[in-house]
């Protein structure tokens, strides 16, 4: 099998203006009484994409998935699958299958019969069903458990049965609602890669709902960050992390330092920002910020260097005092209190076993970063 990277590198239909969207949410709104679960949302997903909906609980991501499956109808707007409007099509006639968070395995049926259930509904001939079930059992490595009932399986095994059952019908789209939520950490990490391999092998479109950002970052081609029924940003994991579109996204994914300030000077490539205490930083890629605009500069901790002396070549260097140090083994996290009172989080990889420039609590320290290390966001 080819390595995932080589297949994936040139897969980016979202950058191709001629690519036909596979799943399309057009101004979809879903209300439950007074509560608006999904608010005027538009989104496109492409064929064979591994798409993740990421958000805190109650952000509307599960409702979105359930509307795609047909368990909920949008209050307004429309959902298209492969050009077909899904409105009014009941779940049992949609070419999508769902893997439920609770797995929803039929307790009175064996593993075999659970997997065969959807195929029997289709009226597939018996020998074909047997062949497909055997194939599915092999795919999820549960051949010897075919005759067991769900209650005789472990959590991880049940998860794999649920997966096998939902892909057995070869749906156009597989919906996964928190597919790894019930597994322990180690199993979850293993299963993430299994899911990615499976998606590649079957060539299906996956839409996965999760609240675990690491899970979404690992598996997805693109991630939609959701909040209060709206999509905040849709982008690849790297873009989400390195170029968040808003404060919310920057905060939601990973750790971030935010410097509030005003644009003092704006040129084609550089932007000079003045902080409240008069400290100045110069950054590249100022985004849409214009002179005098109130902005925030967001920078990830690993892009900040901490040193006891001011680095000679640094464009941006701010002085402060080491306030806290957390040694995590592979890296060390420093909390530096700048002279204007702001606390900056910086992480340094412990590449060497012995540091020549050890910093300790209450030492004077400089934090420095390159002009292209962060992004400028609207306040």
């Amino acid at each position, binding site marked *: 099998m080819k390595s995932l990277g080589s297949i994936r590198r040139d897969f980016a239909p979202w950058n191709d203006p001629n690519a036909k969207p596979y799943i399309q949410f057009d101004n979809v709104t879903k209300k439950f009484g007074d509560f608006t679960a999904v608010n005027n949302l538009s989104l496109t997903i492409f064929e064979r994409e591994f798409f993740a909906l990421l958000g805190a609980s109650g952000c509307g991501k599960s409702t979105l998935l359930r509307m795609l*499956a*047909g*368990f909920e109808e949008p209050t307004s707007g429309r959902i298209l699958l492969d050009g077909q409007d899904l409105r009014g099509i*009941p*779940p*049992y*006639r949609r070419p*999508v*299958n*769902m893997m*439920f968070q*609770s797995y*929803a*395995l*039929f*307790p*009175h049926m064996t593993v075999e019969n659970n997997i065969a*259930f*959807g195929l029997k*509904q*289709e009226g597939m001939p018996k020998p074909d069903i047997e062949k497909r079930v055997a194939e599915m059992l092999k795919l999820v490595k549960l051949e010897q458990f075919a005759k067991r*009932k769900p*209650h005789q399986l472990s959590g991880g095994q049940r998860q794999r049965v649920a997966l096998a*059952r*939902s892909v057995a*019908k070869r749906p156009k789209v597989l919906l996964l609602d928190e597919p790894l939520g019930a597994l322990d950490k180690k199993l979850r990490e293993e299963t993430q890669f299994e899911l990615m391999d499976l998606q590649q092998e079957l060539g299906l479109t996956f839409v996965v709902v999760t609240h675990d950002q690491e899970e979404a970052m690992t598996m997805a081609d693109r991630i939609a960050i959701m909040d209060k029924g709206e999509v905040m940003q849709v982008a690849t994991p790297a873009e989400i992390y390195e170029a968040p579109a808003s404060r919310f996204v920057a905060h939601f994914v990973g750790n971030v330092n935010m410097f509030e300030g005003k644009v003092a000077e704006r040129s084609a490539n550089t932007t000079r920002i003045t902080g409240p205490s008069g400290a100045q930083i110069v950054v590249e890629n100022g985004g849409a910020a214009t002179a005098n605009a109130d902005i925030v500069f967001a920078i990830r901790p690993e892009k900040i260097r901490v040193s006891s002396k001011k680095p000679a070549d640094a464009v941006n260097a701010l002085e402060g005092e080491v306030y806290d140090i957390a040694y995590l083994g592979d890296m060390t996290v420093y909390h530096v209190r700048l002279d204007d009172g702001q606390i900056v989080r910086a992480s340094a990889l412990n590449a060497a076993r012995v540091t020549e420039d050890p910093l300790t609590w209450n030492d004077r320290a400089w934090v420095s970063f390159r002009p292209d290390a962060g992004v400028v966001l609207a306040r």
Partner: protein
Amino acid sequence: MSNIAVTDAAAPSTAAKPFLTRLGTGFVNRLVIIVPYLWLLFFFLIPFVIVFKISLSQTAIAMPPYTPVLDFRDGISGFFAGFRDLNFDNYVWLTQDALYFKAYITSVVIAAISTVLTLIVGYPIAYGMARAPATIRPTLLMLVILPFWTSFLIRVYAWIGILKPEGLLNQLLLSLHIINQPLVILNTYTAIFIGIVYSYLPFMVLPLYSSLEKMDYSLIEAAKDLGCPPTSAFWKITFPLSLPGVIAGALLVFIPAVGEFVIPDLLGGSQTLMIGKTLWNEFFANRDWPVSSAVAVILLLLLTVPIMFFQQAQAKAQEQGK
């Protein structure tokens, strides 16, 4: 001593427990189990033995009205000598008079039909309750239990007022011009079915509700997701999973309905033949205690079959862990 006992009781190994402690906890554990067994012994097994004994004697003009059998009036030897006098004449008699056979069959058939009717009426009620918003479920449950607050006898009497030719039902149907002649319902089997379905409905609804309520609704969604239309999803998922409730409810209705006496007596009139009524007649009208005892023993044996079936089903459900 008590110190040792305490520390040892906390130890995981039972072998390390001192003998007295083991005896103590073992005794308490056993006592808890013994109580229900004693209850069954005194209030079920011994009365049954007495009834069985009476069924082996002959009717006599005496107090009580049967010949003594297997008692200790003549000492131990007399008791054993009594074995030789035992006869199963009363049981033979039950097979000779077609009345009893007919009464048994009618009772079982009526009880079976009533059970099916109760299931048909009760299932939608239980299903509706289980799918109702969680906030109103306790109220619905209360409404199902509410009729028990009134005497059973009065409720059955009330049905006479509803079903009789000049009763409420006929008045309503006549005034709506749906019928021209009053319907004859009272003193027919129809009235018995109505009475049994009405009286035993809660016994059907409650076990059904409890098995439907704990069912995960996402199973139905999963079935639909896999291409199963709602009706088919009901028969393939909901119904099989509610089977323990169906069986429990059916037996809770069927078993008492077979021996039911009050409902056929009040609503079924004189022509209806059911074993409960036959038994009552033998006992009170004929004063033939031995024959009525034999009727009762056969009835009990007849009902052991569904009870054993029930127990097996329960054990199976328990093994499934659901």
